[in-house]
């Protein structure tokens, strides 16, 4: 390497006179650059702002001021803040506390760590609140607790939904036990709001911890979180110190919470407003009823001539065992295949709020011809990898508990429920027993019997035993022509009764497992015809037929009195 650097004469060495001092040096006005919390790079603030406060380089999320946060979701010019003049009584007379608050108020232009008030989101009136970490880590003292409580009480009085953007370090140490009591106070106000049948949406942002997590943050009818947000009760540092272990990557992050069934979903900041508007629309508008049934005749799915030419069986010739095979076929459309074709705007909601999000059960809210419905289905995979995630369509207790949670949510908001059943049976394993598989199924049977909304169950493939029935306590149960529904698998039946699982084919015939058999036995009310075993070729026409039939079902049941609905369901099983 040639070292020319030391040989070249510098500019000042070649000049006859000394250089004058610089007239001005660049001075960067504050705020032109900000450091990304994730990639640590300096980024141009304008770019970050335009990108909803997400780093344009690495996608890292910036924490947002409460004002900006509300601006991001509320319709322009609609937000009016409430209760901005509350003063803490400083219960501990904590040294320098009041001075510190004053200084913070001046610095942040906030009156306290939460900003809450009334505004519109997508044209819908709502009480909107947002915490601000710049104010003592958005810790909850008396003022925060009081503002939220009063706002929730107002929302109850005005019959408005509440949308809360949470973030907090937890309780405010400077206010001691008074601070702790805010947890109970806010939760109590939310209980009344919920009992009034009103909607509470909680959005967890980075970081949501401590007493806030253990109160209003976790009480949403729907709980969403931003990607990567730290969410937990105890802080990760405290946990690591207590247990003396290094915590795994991603521990207590939003995605971790979704996986563990605690929150409904993780939503990118850019999509947040759209998602909130959608959820508010479904939960705050008048319950929409179907128009009276039209006389229009619904065409049955046409025969698939191409398939016939390939020499496939005509359905009439199929044996029960053939249908068992068809119902189990990996070619057969899954719950999500039907859901995506029949409904609009399906939003999946995750988790049982307790242990884990079960991949074998999918559930959420969608629209059927403009009417919001709760849809739940057992989901099988198409590939080995998918099947491992879906546990081959064998739900765990947490799956049934997720389903029940969503059904209860549907009942609260008077939404009809449609379930899709396609399971070889409830998951048989040690973990399932440890968490009470039997209890979970039993609970569903009991609670579903008394739901005050219409419930429709459709067996689309395998209807395996108690694992199927746990989604099948409905006002009507339909089966697809080649679906089966049985006490257990023909193999199991043969093995128990004849000690020979190889006689499964024979068992299938005597068990009465086909749709036609069960219609005769009055176990089901309807059959969805398949002129050719359902696959991706006739999926569209079968879905269309199912959709029209569903509309008919809703027209018939949605106008029924809630008590009558439950009674009808009671009677339906009472006679069996």
């Amino acid at each position, binding site marked *: 390497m040639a*070292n020319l650097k030391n040989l070249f004469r*510098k500019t000042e060495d070649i000049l006859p006179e000394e250089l*004058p*001092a610089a007239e001005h*040096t660049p001075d*960067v006005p504050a705020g032109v650059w900000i450091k990304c919390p994730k990639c640590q*790079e*300096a980024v141009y603030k304008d770019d970050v702002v335009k990108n909803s406060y997400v780093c344009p380089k690495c996608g890292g999320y910036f924490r947002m001021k409460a004002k900006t946060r509300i601006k991001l979701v509320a319709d322009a010019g609609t937000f009016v803040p409430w209760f901005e003049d509350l003063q803490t009584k400083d219960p501990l007379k904590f040294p320098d506390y009041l001075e510190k608050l004053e200084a913070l108020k001046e610095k942040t232009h906030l009156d306290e760590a939460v900003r809450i008030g009334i505004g519109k989101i997508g044209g819908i009136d709502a009480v909107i609140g947002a915490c601000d970490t710049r104010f003592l880590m958005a810790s909850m003292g008396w003022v925060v607790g009081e503002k939220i409580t009063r706002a929730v009480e107002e929302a109850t009085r005005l019959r408005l939904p509440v949308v809360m953007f949470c973030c907090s370090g937890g309780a405010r140490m400077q206010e001691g036990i008074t601070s702790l009591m805010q947890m109970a106070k806010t939760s109590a106000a939310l209980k009344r709001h919920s009992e009034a049948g009103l909607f509470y949406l909680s959005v967890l942002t980075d970081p949501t911890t401590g007493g806030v997590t253990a109160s209003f943050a976790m009480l949403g009818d729907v709980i969403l979180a931003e990607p990567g947000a730290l969410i937990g009760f105890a802080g990760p540092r405290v946990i690591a110190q207590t247990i003396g272990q290094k915590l795994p990557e991603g521990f207590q992050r939003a995605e971790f919470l979704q996986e563990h069934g605690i929150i409904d979903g993780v939503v990118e900041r850019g999509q947040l407003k759209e998602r909130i508007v959608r959820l508010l629309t479904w939960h705050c508008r008048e319950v929409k009823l179907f128009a009276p049934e039209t006389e229009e005749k619904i065409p049955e799915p046409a025969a698939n001539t191409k398939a016939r030419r390939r020499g496939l069986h005509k359905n009439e010739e199929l044996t029960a065992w053939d249908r068992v095979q068809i119902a189990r076929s990996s070619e057969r459309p899954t719950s999500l295949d039907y859901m995506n074709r029949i409904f609009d705007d399906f939003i999946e909601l995750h988790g049982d709020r307790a242990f884990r999000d079960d991949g074998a059960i999918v559930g959420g809210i969608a629209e059927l011809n403009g009417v919001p419905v709760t849809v739940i289905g057992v989901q099988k995979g198409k590939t080995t990898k998918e099947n491992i995630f879906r546990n081959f369509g064998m739900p765990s207790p947490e799956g049934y508990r997720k389903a029940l949670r969503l059904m209860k949510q549907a009942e609260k908001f008077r939404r009809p429920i449609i379930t899709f059943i396609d399971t070889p049976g409830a998951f048989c394993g040690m973990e399932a027993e440890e968490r009470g598989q039997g209890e979970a199924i039993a609970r569903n049977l009991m609670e579903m019997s008394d739901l005050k909304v219409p419930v429709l169950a459709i067996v689309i493939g395998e209807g395996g035993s108690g694992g199927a029935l746990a989604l099948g306590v409905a006002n009507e149960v339909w089966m697809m022509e080649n679906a089966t529904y049985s006490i257990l698998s023909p193999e199991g039946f043969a093995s128990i009764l004849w000690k020979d699982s190889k006689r499964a084919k024979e068992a299938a015939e005597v068990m009465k497992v086909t749709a036609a058999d069960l219609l005769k036995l009055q176990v089901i009310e309807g059959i969805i015809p398949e002129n050719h075993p359902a696959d991706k070729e006739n999926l569209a026409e079968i879905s269309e037929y199912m959709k029209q039939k569903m509309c008919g079902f809703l027209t018939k049941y949605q106008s029924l009195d809630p008590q009558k609905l439950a009674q009808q369901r009671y009677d339906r099983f009472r006679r069996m």
Partner: protein
Amino acid sequence: MFQKILIANRGEIAVRIIRACREMGIKTVAVYSEADADALHTQLADEAVCIGPAASSESYLNPERILSATIASKAEAIHPGFGFLSENPKFVEMCEKCHVAFIGPSAEIIQKMGNKSEARATMIKAGVPVVPGTKKPVYDVDTALKEAKKIGFPVMIKASSGGGGKGMRVAENAETFGEMFRLAQRESVNAFGDDTMYLEKYVGRPRHVEVQILADKFGNVVQLGERDCSIQRRHQKMIEESPCIAIDAKLRKKMGDTAVRAAKAVGYENAGTIEFLLDHTGDFYFMEMNTRIQVEHPVTEFVSGVDLIKEQIRIAAGEPLSVKQKDIVIRGHAIECRINAEDPEHNFRPCPGTVKELHIPGGNGVRIDTALYSGYKIPPQYDSMLMKVIVYDKDRESALAKMRSVLGEVIIDGVQTNIDFQFKILNHPEFRAGNVTTHFIPEHFDME
């Protein structure tokens, strides 16, 4: 005047700018990538700041890192050179926000001229001739033919979604137009599923002639004559000269005045180039405006005697132009050859390497702009241009003779260069006669 300037570039142009600064008594800050720690610009500048890894996107194209270096080194201005961030309006906007002077036009003008249709519309408004064409898309032959007659033959038929020559045809006259239109449209429908067509006057066998302008903050605009840059390989210029021998004093004045009018129309500031297509009849059409200093600026410096980089710096510092139009007299003839590290025998593939032995010729009217030195290892990540050889003499013939002599003396041992190919062009009878168009290389050299 600035006391310290940061040069946001590398290679010979960075060295060229550092030299101008030294002459003006301005301290310099070089920025460099990890691959350029030993580069000449890094060593020649008074200070040097490493701004990241070899990849341009992580270093020379990273506005944040360059601005951080500027602020840390307390430089008052940034000279962007050409390429990299020189025509990036967002970078200019960032400089403005950080109170750093950007040596070039405003973000707004860069934005405006960078957008082809907006630039075209601006030029039409300013009365600058553009290649005539249909303003609206055409779909059927009859309407198209009417439009074609208005434009005048020959006409270029272009598919709106076109690319790679697909959906493109030249109709020489009205008789063949119908067939050509149908052919082009069918091709477009087949290739892009789109039957939207445009028509444009076909400028056959054009020269690429560009006019250099300078404009200060006080509304003074001057033009410094033209450069003929017709010798191009795949839109990469290889030889540039000034003046262009195909134009006379009258046309020269007309093109110059037009360029000044164009610059004034957009409120231009700093150095810029208006590129024209010039056909054999002497009609010329606006192509685009380059809002930066150009590689071939030395030929203009030779014939006009004006140091363009120094003028750029003066303009950015808020000083008026040091020359008036009447003082600018184009004298003699200058030619530039670009020497690249590439192998003409193998489709001009880049050949980086280490410079073992280097001899840089000199003499009267000889200028060599390069960042090479003996022992320099050429990093493979960047442009392959090694050196610009520029000669000046009283007329084209003498300048050509000088170029041959100088090129024959250049030694860059250890690296494959295109010098032999440059000789082939210089010695081609058509080139010597000055009969060049932008098709010169594909027409006379069959290498691709």
